[in-house]
Every structure is written in structure tokens, then in C-alpha cells.
């Protein structure tokens, strides 16, 4: 051991996932689901929690057995662990949040193929101890969640005039000819937003592709 649970190094891992190498804006992963489930904040939050849980715990499990995994079948082993966790999340949602699970439809299942999960397993969990891997998974999951929820908030407010189902646009706006922007509810709206978010995040963090 010899290293405290929240040492400088570990803090760096968290900061990397959340900001410096944010999975969506820096690594540009998980875009498909970022577009698909962000028409409402509620579904964005639920999928974010799902993905964060899956990434964090699959990182831990893989990290625990990393020294025993035969390297020629490591992807299969990773997939098995991820699938098991995703099915668990799906089953729990069906039991305790049936309506949300219906809205998310295939997207919970598709967490399996979300590049962030596999990416973290390959890039981090295969070579680091469990606690660090847990932090890494958690931070990357939350980094993804932050972007998702942000897009969800903007899309729901401007697309439907609501936030978490409650009306937030003042009726006076509508009386004066304001209309909800239908494009926000469609995929292109999310694409534009995502582009802007990537741009803003990268100019603050000072990252450039070259």
C-alpha cells in the first residue's frame, strides 16, 4: 500500500476522467448514446448512472483478475463481465423503474458496446490495481454523465420547454410568439450542441488535435 486513498496520483486519475481526457469531449467516445437518450434529462440521468456503475465495477472486476486473464481471450472475458453487469442494471431498472426502462429501450443493453467501458478496461484496468481502476471508471463515467446531462438540460428546455417534466419556460414567452425548437428534439440538434460543448471544453483545457 503506502499510498493514501486520495493521493495526488489518484486525484489526477479522477481529474483526467472528469475533465482533461473526458471520454466524450476528448476521446470522442459514447457519442451514439449521447445523441439518443438526451431529449429528456430524466433518461439522460438514468443512462448516465447505468454507465457509470457499469464502467466503475467492470473496471474493478477486471483489475482484480487482470493477472489471471489469458491475454488471448481478454476481450471475451471483458465482454462477459461487462454484459453481466449491464444485464444486472437492466433487470434492476425493469423491476424498480419500469417506465424509464421502457423509454431507454435498447440503450441500456447497448452500454455493452459503449466504447467508454471497453476503452477503460483495455487502457486502464488491465494494468492498474482495483482502487485506482475504480476511481478511473467512476471518473470517466461521471465525465460522460456530465456531458450527457448538460446536453439533456439544454435539449429539454429549448425543445420541449420543460425540465425533468416540469414546465420552466414562462407562459409569457409563448404568448409573445415563442415556439419550442423542434430541432432540439432531433439528432441534429444534439450534434450541434455536442460540437459546441467539445469546442468550449477543448479551448478551456487547451487541447488541440495536432
Amino acid at each position, binding site marked *: 500500500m503506502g499510498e493514501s486513498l486520495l493521493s495526488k496520483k489518484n486525484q489526477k486519475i479522477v481529474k483526467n476522467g472528469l475533465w482533461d481526457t473526458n471520454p466524450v469531449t476528448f476521446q470522442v467516445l459514447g457519442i451514439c448514446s449521447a445523441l*439518443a437518450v438526451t431529449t429528456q434529462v430524466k433518461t439522460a440521468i438514468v443512462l448516465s448512472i447505468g454507465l457509470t456503475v457499469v464502467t466503475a465495477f467492470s473496471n474493478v472486476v477486471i483489475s482484480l483478475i487482470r493477472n489471471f486473464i489469458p491475454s488471448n481471450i481478454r476481450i471475451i472475458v471483458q465482454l462477459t*463481465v461487462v454484459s*453481466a453487469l449491464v444485464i444486472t442494471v437492466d433487470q434492476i431498472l425493469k*423491476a424498480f423503474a419500469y*417506465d424509464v426502462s421502457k423509454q431507454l429501450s435498447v440503450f441500456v443493453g447497448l452500454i455493452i458496446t459503449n466504447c467508454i467501458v471497453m476503452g477503460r478496461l483495455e487502457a486502464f484496468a488491465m494494468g492498474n490495481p482495483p482502487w485506482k481502476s475504480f476511481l478511473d471508471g467512476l471518473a470517466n463515467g461521471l465525465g460522460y454523465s456530465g456531458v450527457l446531462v448538460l446536453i439533456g438540460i439544454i435539449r429539454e428546455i429549448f425543445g420541449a420547454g420543460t425540465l425533468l417534466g416540469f414546465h420552466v419556460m414562462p407562459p409569457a414567452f409563448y404568448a409573445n410568439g415563442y415556439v419550442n425548437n423542434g430541432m432540439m428534439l432531433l439528432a441534429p440538434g444534439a450534434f450541434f450542441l455536442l460540437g459546441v460543448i467539445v469546442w468550449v471544453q477543448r479551448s478551456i483545457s487547451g487541447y488541440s488535435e495536432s
Partner: protein
Amino acid sequence: MKQNTYTFLFATIICVISAVLLSGISEGLKEKQKLNEELDVKKNILKAVQLQEPVDSKMKAAEVLNVYETKIEELVIDETGEIVEGKKISDIQAQAFYPLYVYKEGDQIMAYAFPIVGQGLWSTLYGYMALEADVTTVRGVTFYKHGETPGLGGEIEKEWFQNNFKGKTIWSTQENKLTPIAVLKGKVSEMYKDDPEGGKHYVDGITAATLTGNGVTDLIDQSVRHYEPYFSKQRKI
């Protein structure tokens, strides 16, 4: 060789552990999921019959069940359209019996609802169709379970598609025969511009989901025909 044995052993162990865990979870949550599904079905029946006071989406499960029990009468009919006394919907196993849900306000029959089930493009679609008391006009349609592509065939679960069906008729007064509703490839307002009577048997299709639409057409046709013997006795034309 030793390497291979280890690889197989490791893979087997991982698979067995995952399988055991998953079956445990699935078994443990089964009851709760089943209740959710039943509740969802009842909500959909209530939605299809268009209650005078619609069920609020924030209503608790117990309240929804209460509304269901006071407003909906469950019947079982057979192939000849006779009501089978003393049989419950949960008892139905053979193909020859069909469940029918009657929505009543007091003693007044408001609507008849029945399940519409059949193949879409990738999956079986489950839904309900409700007819007005005249047994010809559609009061509402819902689809609550399917595995179609979200955004394409998955649009069948959206309000705009389901609202299309309202006010359409399954009986052609011109030809005096059963004409269940078909999903067009295109828009009714354009294709039946000069024939509003004919347009009453069609609804707008979903762009890029023609095959799901064809499935919907077929499954409505089949389902309606099962109930026609009963409906024809109620219909006064």
C-alpha cells in the same frame, strides 16, 4: 497445450460465475417485474379506451388498479362471438377464445378494447385497440411492447402515430363489409384527398418503416377478424 487448458478453464469459470449470478438476479426480481408488466398492460388498456378522466402518469399503482377494476369489465368470447360465462381472461389458453375488455361509465358501455398482436419487422408487436360503443369507430390504439428500431419502426409507440387511428372506422358503409385499418406508405391527406370516405380506413405511414407499417396492417386485420363475430351482433347498421 497447457496454455490452452488454462484458457478454457478460465473462460469456463468466468462464464459459470456470470451465469449463476445473473440467474440469481433474474429469479429474485421476477415477481416485481411481472407486477410491473401487468400494471403496464392495464395502463395501456385504460389508455386505449380513452377514459373520460384519463389516468395521470404520476398515479400510484394501487390507484391505477382501482380505476381499472371499477371501469373495465373483462369478458371472454369464443370464435362464434358468444360470451363464455365463468371463464377468466387469465384462463385463456386455447386459440379459440379471445379476451375482450369493456369500458363502462356506470351502466353505459363506452368502448370495447381488445389486444392486437402480431409480427412487425423484427419483433412481435403488442398493443390494444379500442372501438367506440358503435363498434365501428376506433376510439384509441396503443402499442406497448415491441423490439422495432427506435426512431424508425419504434415510432409506433409514439402519440402521433397512435393518434392517427382515432376516428377511423373498421366498417365500410359504402361496401357494407369489414375493412380494418391499413397503414399507408405515405400520408392519408395526400393519397385520399378526393376520397374522404375511403381515407377513413387508412392511417399515415412511418417514413423509413414501411415494413413495420405492413406488419401493423396485418396484425390489425387478423385481430379484428377474430372479434368480428361478436362485434357484428352488437353493430346496428
